[in-house]
């Protein structure tokens, strides 16, 4: 029976995987929630597969075990040479990463990853990205407008206008876009 270790140290519902995988017949080891507990669990429990959220702060702990224990008499945990790389890549994109014993057959891994993937819909991530890009564009236009206003009203060069705005951003502890917003707002005030 495959021994599966879940790392549950982010607020995503990865923990819910446990019951699903147990129902599918995998042996679920006690979940760990800290990098140090993880280190011990890998050494004492010797899991075949570790499933962890892409955003887990424990990732680098697993990297160390994967790289440095290659010659030690314990399981080598790494991106398997046999595993379907596309599956792994999809998993990374969807917010889940698996570390597995080298040589573990893809067909044994696939159902585990499929269940894990289902937990991490990508849709919300895409929406967030789009909103972010639109915001960037708006800020950029605003900064450009403020810069041109300074160049006109203060007879400044483009370089000097930027420098003035940067100085104000630093002094006030705000983003450059905020300074631009102030400049534009001040100019829009009725005389």
């Amino acid at each position, binding site marked *: 029976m495959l021994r599966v270790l879940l790392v549950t140290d*982010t607020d995503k519902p990865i923990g819910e995987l446990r019951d699903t995988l147990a129902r599918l017949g995998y042996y679920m080891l006690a979940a760990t929630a*800290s*990098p*140090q507990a993880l*280190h011990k669990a890998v050494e004492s429990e010797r899991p075949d597969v570790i499933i962890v959220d*892409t*955003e*887990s*702060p*424990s*990732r*680098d*702990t*697993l*990297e*160390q075990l*994967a*790289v*440095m224990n290659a*010659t030690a008499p314990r399981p080598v945990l*790494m*991106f398997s040479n046999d595993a379907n*790389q596309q599956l792994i*890549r999809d998993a*990374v*994109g969807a917010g889940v*990463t698996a570390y597995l014993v080298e040589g573990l057959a893809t067909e044994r891994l696939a159902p585990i990853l499929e269940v894990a993937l289902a937990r991490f819909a990508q849709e919300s991530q895409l929406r967030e990205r789009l909103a*972010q*890009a639109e915001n*960037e*564009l708006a*800020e*950029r236009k605003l*900064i*450009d407008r403020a810069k041109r206003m300074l160049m006109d009203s203060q007879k400044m060069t*483009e*370089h000097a206008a*930027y420098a003035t705005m*940067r100085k104000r*951003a*630093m002094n006030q*502890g705000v*983003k*450059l*876009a905020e300074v631009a917003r102030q400049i534009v707002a001040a100019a829009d005030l009725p005389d």
Partner: protein
Amino acid sequence: MNSPAYTSSSDPSGKLEKTHLRLGFVALSDAAPLVAAKLLEFGHAHGLTIELLKQPSWAAIRDKLLSGDLDAAHSLYGLVYGVQLGIGGPQTDMAVLMVLNRNGQAITVSNRLAAALDEHKTLPAALATLGRKPVFAQTFPTGTHAMWLYYWLASQGVHPLRDIEGVVIPPPQMVDALAQDRLDGLCVGEPWNAVAQERGVGRTIAYSSEVWPDHPEKVLASRRDFVTRYPNTARALVQTMLEACRWLDDDVHRVEISRRLAADEFVGVPAGLIAPRLIAAGSDEKRRAVKFFADGVVNYPHPAEGVWFFAQYARWGMAEWRDDFARIASEVNQVELYCEAAANVGVSVCADSPSAVLVDGRVWDGKADLAYMQGFSIRA
């Protein structure tokens, strides 16, 4: 003076292939160039907008560079070279666009070990007082901190693969682990050494500049095909980051950026713990503070420095020795792109091959052969 003839493959019009870039960083003081570039929008003058994405681990930085979720990132020098060799994961051709900083990392030990060192003078004697295998933490298996720690331990007569247990713990949790007596020492970037000392749970006993004076540390990294597909964008990004690094070459600006780095969205540590070690490390000339620019000397991506990481991976059994390490490094480090970008923003180009005397007295001048690697008495 002859200027080098560049054979640029880029669009001669200089039109940017991409204008919005997603850059990853990890919560460390030396993320300052990215934070400055974003807050002060140094990219706008070069046609770029920058989106900063804080990453919870170096593994996340690597995976997102590989998947294309990030265009470029604040990266451990060694991480790029580890991926290039396929150590611990899929091999991918990588690029070092420029060096972002030198120095600025340190080794901090528990109070108990620090006291033992005071009493017994040598590290092996001090470690023996613990009565068990010492535990040292670093940040990533192929990263810079692993390499500084291993090199330093070996220089003190301690074998990093046999005499200690090496673990990786995320930097924000290292200080807790030290406080709970679960670690004897750690090698990490600032501000975490300063935090450990401020909380009274450890003492910084070596600065990374003592291991290798002015060593390269974080780099601006991307996949190789980011450079080949978007050469004008990559050049504009280097120009942007060079301006940010130049801006940081001023103590007043470093105090200002410390206040900004303190925010939870960046480092989440009080500015009072960030600023001091951004400005000075120690009174000793060997204890050098972090450098971000120094007239561009910091930023030139010398392939010879990259070869050092390959040589150390071979030393520690993480990679087979190869005679073509120098060639691989010259393909990773984008010297031509860097020189074009530096010229465009008036940064002087320093192509002198660096040479340094490291903590064990050995000279590193970029010429690695098998004999150099075998010259280390402590190795895998």
